[in-house]
């Protein structure tokens, strides 16, 4: 079932929660609504579910207008952030609730309901907890029960509101993987809301980035990360290092720092955005860049070594005035960078913003341009 959202507006008093939002959610795909708090992502999800009504605009499922259709009749699965399990019902009763609520003609027999609940309990690997009450379960178990409950009536659409928000990191990772498998097995059209970029990029087929009631960009995770449309998406999707300054004769300068930008015709103020993995660290400046930085901190945890550096003689944009560069553990073992060392950032790929609302231009510094000096160092 495809979901189409067309020109949705929603106000809460003076606050514009959604501003003329239109969106196509493809059938059978897992879509993430990603944005900071207050961006309207949960409101949009609740409007699609029918738990909230839009001030104007339309929602349709597979071309059928459901704007006026009551939540009860939309036949969707909805998973709440805080599980919303029925506290005085057992796990089995919780899961059976949707089936028990079906109109008499569609309702399966008692035995069938029991069988189906049993299957769902198997699926969430909690058959031994059938007669427990929600208060007796851990957070991860509660969320699995909530998922089983929401899909008991075999809905075609599954909506999840920050499904892993209240769980700790380890459980969250397991549940993410489990949800992905579940989705692939049942082929729902799913939408989940999250403010966690990593979760959105890892789990989804399509990411919708929202900010202040607007859709900023819709794309596949890999495309989105590689080619952000706007400064907001760039900033929001992970760490970014910014050099802002003036371009004169294809050289971007700010304080003691400069970078040559090949083939640029623009003159004046620009911002250069660099991801931590698009920068290398060298012990001396190279032909196309001179970005002196002093190491502030080195973090070894993870598959990559994260180095935090403070600009020396120039300033980075952003309040903390810190650059972050990721290097491999092999590089780390060779170079042994420590706090207080001076290093030079060497940009390999960058994204240049020349105007206020323009899309970025990707800049590649060709390997051939790099001076032989630097290759000897690395």
């Amino acid at each position, binding site marked *: 079932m495809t979901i189409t959202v067309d020109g949705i507006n929603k106000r809460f008093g003076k606050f514009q929660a959604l501003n003329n939002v239109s969106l196509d959610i493809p059938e059978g795909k897992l879509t993430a609504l990603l944005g900071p708090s207050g961006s309207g992502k949960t409101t949009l999800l609740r409007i699609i*579910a029918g*738990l909230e009504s839009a001030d104007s605009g339309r929602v349709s499922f597979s071309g059928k207008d459901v704007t006026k259709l009551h*939540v*009860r*009749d939309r*036949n*969707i*699965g*909805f998973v*709440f952030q*805080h599980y*919303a*399990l*029925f*506290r*005085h*019902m057992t796990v089995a009763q919780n899961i059976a*609730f*949707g089936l028990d*609520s*079906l109109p008499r003609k569609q309702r399966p027999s008692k035995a069938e309901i029991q069988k189906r609940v049993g299957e769902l309990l198997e699926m969430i690997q909690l058959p031994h907890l059938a007669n427990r*009450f929600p*208060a*007796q*379960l*851990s957070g991860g178990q509660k969320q699995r029960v909530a998922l089983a*409950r*929401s899909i008991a*009536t075999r809905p075609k659409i599954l909506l999840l509101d920050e499904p892993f928000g209240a769980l700790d990191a380890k459980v969250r990772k397991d549940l993410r993987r489990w949800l992905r498998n579940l989705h692939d097995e049942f082929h729902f059209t799913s939408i989940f809301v999250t403010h966690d970029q990593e979760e959105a990029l890892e789990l989804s087929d399509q990411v919708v980035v929202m900010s202040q009631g607007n859709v900023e960009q819709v794309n596949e995770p890999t495309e989105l990360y590689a080619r952000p449309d706007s400064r907001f998406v760039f900033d929001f999707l992970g760490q970014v290092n910014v050099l802002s300054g003036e371009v004169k004769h294809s050289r971007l300068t700010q304080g003691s720092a400069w970078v040559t930008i090949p083939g640029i015709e623009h003159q004046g103020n620009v911002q250069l955005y660099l991801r931590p993995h698009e920068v290398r660290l060298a012990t001396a400046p190279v032909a196309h860049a001179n970005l002196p930085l002093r190491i502030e901190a080195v973090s070894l945890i993870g598959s990559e070594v994260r180095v935090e550096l403070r600009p020396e003689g120039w300033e980075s944009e952003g309040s903390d005035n810190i650059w972050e560069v990721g290097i491999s553990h092999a590089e780390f073992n060779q170079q042994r960078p420590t706090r207080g060392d001076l290093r030079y950032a060497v940009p390999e790929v960058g994204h240049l913003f020349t105007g206020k609302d323009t899309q970025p231009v990707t800049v590649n510094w060709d390997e051939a341009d790099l001076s032989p000096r630097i290759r000897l160092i690395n």
Partner: protein
Amino acid sequence: MNASQSSRHRRVGDSPVIKWLLIGIAVAVALALLIVPLLVIFVEALGAGWGTLADNLTDQYTLHAIGLTLFVAALTVPLNLVFGTALAWLVTRFRFPGRKLLITLIDIPFAVSPVVAGLLYLLLYGRNGWVGSWLADYDMQLMFSWPGIVMVTVFVTCPFVARELIPLMQQQGSEEEEAGVVLGASGWRIFRTITLPNIKWALIYGVVLTNARAVGEFGAVSVVSGNIRGQTNTLPLHVELLYQDYNIVGAFASASLLAGIAVFTLAVKGFVEWRQTRSLNRLQTEETAQ
């Protein structure tokens, strides 16, 4: 805790003298103001023996007063049960302008003296009142008859159920009900299987308080009832009448009945509170046991 520790960490009230002085005062006040008067009621009522007590209680007018009091309570409690639940549902599940004002307005019966409340009803619904004079044209009389007594009793007791439910329902939130409606349940099914079990004990507690107040209400009822013996006399009014007639034993006999109802109410209230904390504790220990 040993002596050296307690002398180093001395707090207010730690000294045994102060401790026992405070306990003594509390016990003395409780005895003088609560327990002794309650005992006196039963002692006086039984002073002339069980036979006299039975005679006094089976007196024609006393029996009528008991009947009327129970009748009023039987009408008031369900009315306020429905009203209180609906109101609590309204102010905790919906957002609308004036919601905060409505929550404040619920407390008016607590803030206004019952006598003033009775007077207001008399002025509005009495034979010469705005509504009362219009009703009189249709030969309907509310004041100085049982409908008036029920009306003021409903007014005086209407905050109890709502006041018990609102904080609880606010704390529980509406997510469970939303989950229910997404799963296709009808409004009635949601109320019956999700909302009601969640608020059950608070609801019972509210009913117990409403009932206690409805049975014992004196001020507002005395203004609108007209104290007609055998017609509009409730039990609390009857006690006063008997006392003014110098029928001391009769007055105490009826009073002992009211006191008995009060003690019974306290016992039920205690039980409900115990059940509430027990189920809460059970949930908590189960959560920490995880």
